[in-house]
């Protein structure tokens, strides 16, 4: 993202055509990435739906406690992190550097907490005998495959996002990144949050006992 | 250069089209084989309609291109270009009208042909034949005297001892008289209902003379029904890439008269 403000589509009206959306190219590219990534998630969720409909012996193993409860807590954490991200963007826009840095760190920490809880959840499932290719309940083996690949893909996005947030936060404090970079990271983070809003009901709630 | 281009293009067009009219080269026919099925004439008719429509477009556009390039070759220095009469509009309108009408007709008529093959189900009394595709052969199963197919047990498949379908005659009486053969023998003018399944990867059931092609997908039982109208010996080939022996995966289809077929079936039943 380091080349973002160089090629900013605004602010050089004197010698360049206006961007049709009036947003910096970094932001434009992030929106495009989000669209493409949304298609990727849709494809994986499509696979999940396709196999689930095709499997008469689909397992619905999740108990309210601990799995669903854990999921609700995770959802809450991720939603909160979206709020802190908003605050970070607001602060950065207003030029309140230390506040922006603080909110960014908070967001990253919440993201890391989410990932940790998620990994605990995975650990519990693996202890119960769930694998990509194995269903301890004897039902469709696709449950493990779909669960781990979808949540894994999402987890990968969260972990990537946490790393990006950390880099951006530090860079922002040092002055290497500006408010637009923070905003662009924010778009990504909200997207990760939004995807979870699909993953949680489809993968967790629909598979509750 | 332009004349050369125009000439070459027109020669290419003429030669390409000529093969359509003269496609028999002494033993080698570059055309569809005889149609031996009830629905085949619909397919052939649809194909000929498309051939005339698109052939016309092909010849017209290639010749026009060749002609225009030919014309464009020796124009004087300082030539002031001319715009095609009417500009882009006649192009757009003619494309939409010509192609639009063509595709409307084609999809209406074509859908009917397609529907005739695939939207209908076999009539009662159709002869059921079970088709097992595997790397790299087809096997066919007739229900035998009891008229019932034995259940399939993939774990029982043992090709070396001739159990291609995974039958369990020890425990399953219905399976004992099932007739398993490597050549599909059918009576002429009687509807056949195939149930296609594969034991390993995707294969395809293709008989040129029946104008039929259907992938055989493992995990699915795909029904396919047809009526053969001409006796003869045809080839069933696999058209879906299935591994090293793909090009040798085939079986013969023998369409016999009802009497010949009955006799053949009796012989097979006796041999069980």
């Amino acid at each position: 993202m380091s080349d973002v403000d160089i090629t900013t589509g605004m602010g050089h009206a004197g010698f360049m055509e206006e961007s049709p959306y009036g947003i910096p190219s970094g932001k434009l590219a992030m929106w495009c990435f989000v669209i493409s990534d949304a298609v990727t998630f849709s494809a994986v969720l499509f696979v999940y739906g396709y196999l689930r409909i095709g499997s008469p012996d689909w397992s619905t193993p999740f108990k309210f406690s601990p799995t669903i409860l854990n999921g609700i807590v995770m959802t809450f954490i991720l939603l909160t992190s979206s709020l802190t991200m908003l605050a970070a963007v607001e602060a950065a826009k207003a030029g309140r550097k230390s506040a922006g840095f603080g909110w960014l760190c908070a967001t990253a920490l919440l993201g890391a907490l989410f990932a940790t809880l998620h990994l605990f959840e995975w650990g519990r499932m693996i202890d119960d005998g769930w694998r990509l290719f194995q269903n301890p309940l004897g039902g469709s083996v696709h449950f493990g495959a779909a669960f781990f690949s979808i949540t894994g893909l999402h987890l990968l996005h969260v972990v990537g996002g946490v790393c990006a947030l950390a880099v951006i936060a530090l860079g922002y404090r040092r002055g290497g990144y500006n408010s637009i970079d923070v905003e662009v990271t924010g778009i990504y983070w909200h997207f990760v949050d939004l995807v979870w809003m699909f993953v949680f009901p489809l993968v967790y709630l629909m598979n509750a006992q | 250069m332009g004349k050369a281009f125009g000439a070459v293009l027109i020669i290419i067009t003429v030669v390409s089209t000529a093969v359509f009219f003269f496609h028999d080269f002494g033993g080698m026919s570059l055309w569809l084989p005889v149609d031996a099925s009830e629905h085949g004439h619909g397919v052939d008719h649809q194909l000929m309609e498309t051939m005339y429509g698109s052939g016309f477009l092909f010849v017209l556009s290639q010749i026009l291109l060749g002609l225009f390039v030919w014309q464009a070759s020796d124009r004087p220095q300082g030539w002031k270009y001319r715009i095609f009469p009417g500009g882009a509009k006649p192009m757009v309108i003619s494309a939409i009208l010509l192609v639009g009408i063509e595709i409307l007709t084609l999809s209406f008529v074509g859908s009917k042909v397609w529907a005739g093959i695939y939207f209908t189900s076999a009539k009662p009394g159709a002869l059921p034949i079970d088709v097992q595709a595997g790397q790299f052969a087809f096997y066919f199963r007739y229900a035998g005297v009891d008229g019932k197919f034995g259940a399939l047990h993939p774990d029982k498949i043992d090709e070396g001892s001739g159990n291609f379908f995974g039958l369990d005659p020890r425990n399953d009486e219905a399976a004992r008289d099932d007739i398993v053969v490597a050549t599909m023998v059918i009576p002429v003018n009687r509807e056949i209902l195939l149930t296609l399944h594969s034991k390993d990867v995707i294969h395809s059931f293709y008989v040129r003379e029946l104008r039929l092609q259907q992938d055989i997908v493992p995990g699915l039982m795909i029904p396919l029904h047809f009526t053969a109208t001409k006796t003869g010996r045809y080839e069933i080939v696999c058209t879906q890439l299935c591994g090293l022996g793909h090009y040798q995966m085939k079986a013969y289809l023998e369409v016999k008269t009802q009497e010949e077929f009955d006799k053949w079936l009796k012989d097979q039943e006796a041999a069980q």
Partner: protein
Amino acid sequence: MSEAAHQHGEPTGFIRKYIFSVDHKVIGLQYIGLGIVAVVIGMILSWLMRLHLGWSTLAIPGLEKLSPTGAPANVMTPEYYLSLMTMHGTLMVFFVLTNVPFAGFGNYFLPIQVGAPDMAFPRMNMMSFWVTFTAFLVLIAAFFVPGGPPLSGWTAYAPLSAVGESSGPGEGLGQTLWGLSIAIFCVAQLLGALNFIATTLDLRTKGMSLARMPFSTWAWFITSVIGLLAFAVLLPACILLVLDRVAGTSFFVPGGLVINDRMQPHTGGSPLLWQHLFWFFGHPEVYIAILPAIGIVSHILPAFLRKPLLGPRVLIGCLAAIGFLSYMVWGHHMFVSGMNPFSAILFSVPTLVITIPATIATLLWIGSVYGARIRFSCASLFCLGFISVFISGGISGFFLAQPSIDTYLHATYFVVAHFHFVMGVAAIFAMFAGIYFWLPKMVGRMMNETLGKIHFWLTFVGVYCIFMPMHYLGLAGNVRRYAAFTDDFLAPLVPVHQFITIAALITGAAQFIFLYNLVWSRFRGPKATENPWQATSLEWSTTSPPPFDNFGGRQLVVHQEPYLYGVEGSAGDYVMQTSPETVEAH
């Protein structure tokens, strides 16, 4: 960290300048170079395949060295034939047809044509090339791993591609590498597409409104949007395929499979699922290959017709319509796949509808040729050739779009002829046109026209000799992907295959004239002026080759439509886009 690309300063070291360069021009050339390597390999593979098809017991000297098990005593085994076919398809579709017209020329000329100093994200641009290069290496590695290259075709239909070695030779590590390679390739294409979109929308110089962008820029832009969505589906599909192979999942593998008398451990997956995912990408991919080609040809043609094309807005509309429709038609690859026969009609109609914008575009080109005084050069000949092969390839689409005819023609050489003409040969003609047209700009030297014209005639007549007979083979029911024709009804057709093989050898050999011409011209060709073709778009308003920041620090201002040919201007019969003069309508 955040200085402008044009303020980066020109790098001096060899590595920063030519290898890990952030300069879009160098990256464009790298893509084209990679494409040339891939196309030479792909073409040699097709020679080997053609030789085998013509004379199936022929010993091809040296083949045993390439693969001792694939060609014992230099005679090709059927599995090696299929492996070569798979590698040919994969190399050509991904590393040639996607890389050269889109990523190669697009990288080089998109920023210049919109008047930008570089891509929006130069470093990401460099990364996307090197990721592509990694994908290429991973794919080529499949030639040398135990078990040999994959043999399941460029479509890699599961379960053949998913169950591993047990389904036969060519399904070992090579297939896994194939899946990884394509997944990596998807990442590179996604990065590239982001870059192209941002550059097109945000980096246009003053006066370069969207309406004034050249056809090629439009085509690259539309292609990026298609690619952004298409590769996003292939990426997870490939990853799931690799998981099926290495992690024991069963996404694409149903239960109860018995391969070589052994029960497979998989259960419950769906082979059709892979086909849906693959073709959801696969059909747009066809347009990813052909749209840039259409754009390039439409861009080059007016410069040699010396007149603007008919209906430029209509043409761009056609490109957009083709791109949009490409997402609704993937099922036409699956008419006989066992998919619900009702959906065949649903997929057939939009497929037929695509022929409308395609026909409009074709008629616009033909109509534009009318009344022109053509300057015949290699570039214009290849453009005219493109129109011809595009017609020939497109027409056969009428047949294959209809399920009732596809039930006969599916998986025959008719299909081979169709997609080679419309996607392969047409796009390659556009690439040749692009190289003859743009090489003077890219390296500052003109190409030899005489060699180029010999190359054109041999190629043009050659491709018709190769692919036209295939239509008739298909009508005779000649099944594709067969290593040899042993069936009773196929054996009599072998003489046609021998004819095609000879044509392919000659046509292939003619490409070495082109390669020689390319190398010779690079070093010995006459120096090119700034605007040798008297063309109008922005790339001709800078030196040949352009300086590091494209315009030597100048900020161009665009005053004109892109194709003002045949009008009186200060420079002759044309008016550059940068020219401030007032032009009267023709």
